[in-house]
């Protein structure tokens, strides 16, 4: 290899990397507010879907569990929204669980997941998640795991279904323990 080639290689690689870095910094700065806004909107949309009558959502903490306190227009608390992280088939599933004043499930929404498209990804559909509405801690088992269970698993996606069931039940247990 000639000396000239070695110098040229160093110069070109440094130059290209520097230019790319500069370009990426520009793009990052320009899209960052947009990305954060999109994330915030998504979050607010989910909260509204769980509690359509909620007006204000305040961050609070109870026994080291963080949650959102949902207030209606008269500033009364009508429920809480918890975030649950549970291990599914393709990584963690992030849930938002709405709980009403009687500690029953109001509504569940999947915030983020990595389950198999077409199979596990059906956990986001309402006909699965609506099964949880109004259930208490002892009813949240898969029908095939426990006789008292009231939740039907999704065909071909037992692991994903079970992980949601477990995650939600553990949350309810944790809340109850905290209250004692």
């Amino acid at each position, binding site marked *: *290899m000639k000396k000239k*080639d070695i110098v*040229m*290689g160093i110069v*070109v*690689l440094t130059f*290209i*990397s520097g230019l*790319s870095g500069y*370009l*990426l910094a520009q*793009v*990052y700065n320009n*899209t960052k507010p*947009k*990305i954060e806004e*999109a*994330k915030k909107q*998504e979050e607010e949309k989910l909260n509204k879907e769980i509690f359509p009558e909620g007006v204000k959502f305040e961050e609070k903490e109870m026994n080291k569990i963080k949650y959102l306190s949902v207030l209606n227009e008269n500033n009364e608390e009508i429920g809480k929204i918890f975030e649950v992280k549970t291990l599914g088939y393709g990584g963690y599933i992030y849930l938002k669980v709405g709980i009403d004043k009687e500690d029953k499930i109001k509504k569940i929404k999947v915030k*983020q997941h*990595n389950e*198999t*498209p*077409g*199979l596990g990804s059906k956990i986001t559909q309402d006909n699965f998640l609506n099964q949880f509405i109004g259930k208490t801690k002892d009813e949240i088992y898969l029908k095939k795991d426990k006789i008292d269970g009231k939740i039907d698993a999704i*065909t*071909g996606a037992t692991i994903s279904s079970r992980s949601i069931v477990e995650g939600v039940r553990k949350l309810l247990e944790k809340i109850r323990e905290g209250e004692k």
Partner: protein
Amino acid sequence: MKKIIDFKVFLNGIWKENPILFIMLGLCPVLAVSGSVKDALGMGIAVIFVLTGSNMVISLIRKIVPSYVRIPVFIVVIATFVTITDYFLAAYSPQIHKNLGVYLPLIVVNCIILGRAEGFASKNNIFNSILDGLGMGIGFTLIIFVISSIREILGNGTFMGKILFTNFNPFLIMIMPPGAFLVIGILIALKQKIEKGKKIC
């Protein structure tokens, strides 16, 4: 001597040397995101953009890059384009960004892009390189669209998320990775049949 602008290069990528059916590079994202038509189209558009952009830049700098640093330089260029696409999708189309997940950053190591950079753009002028990127990208998108349509309709009974049939019992295997292998295999066989005609049966 090759022409400065050769439209055959464009058509080449769409049919004769189609990246999925002939070169058979970059199959992992094809398997991964062809379960639903919407995700497949998002992936296809991202690939068209990255492929065209990186081909253009690499063809521009091909004469000043010494051959022993060419691979790192190509990767830096490709990674830049992928990251730009990543940010833009996250900002303007969060839903597709969410669905493509990890496969979007993984376009960096999609062999078809480095393959075209090394095999075409580093040897040809800028116009032909852009045409090649567009042709290969569109060829990739068309085939991934066909594959995902077949898989989504048979495996889930839906097309672009719309339910097509009632009382339909889907073939679960079509939506899983083996289904993608089956569909790709059948499409490759069909392409061979169309091109070679009666010589193979």
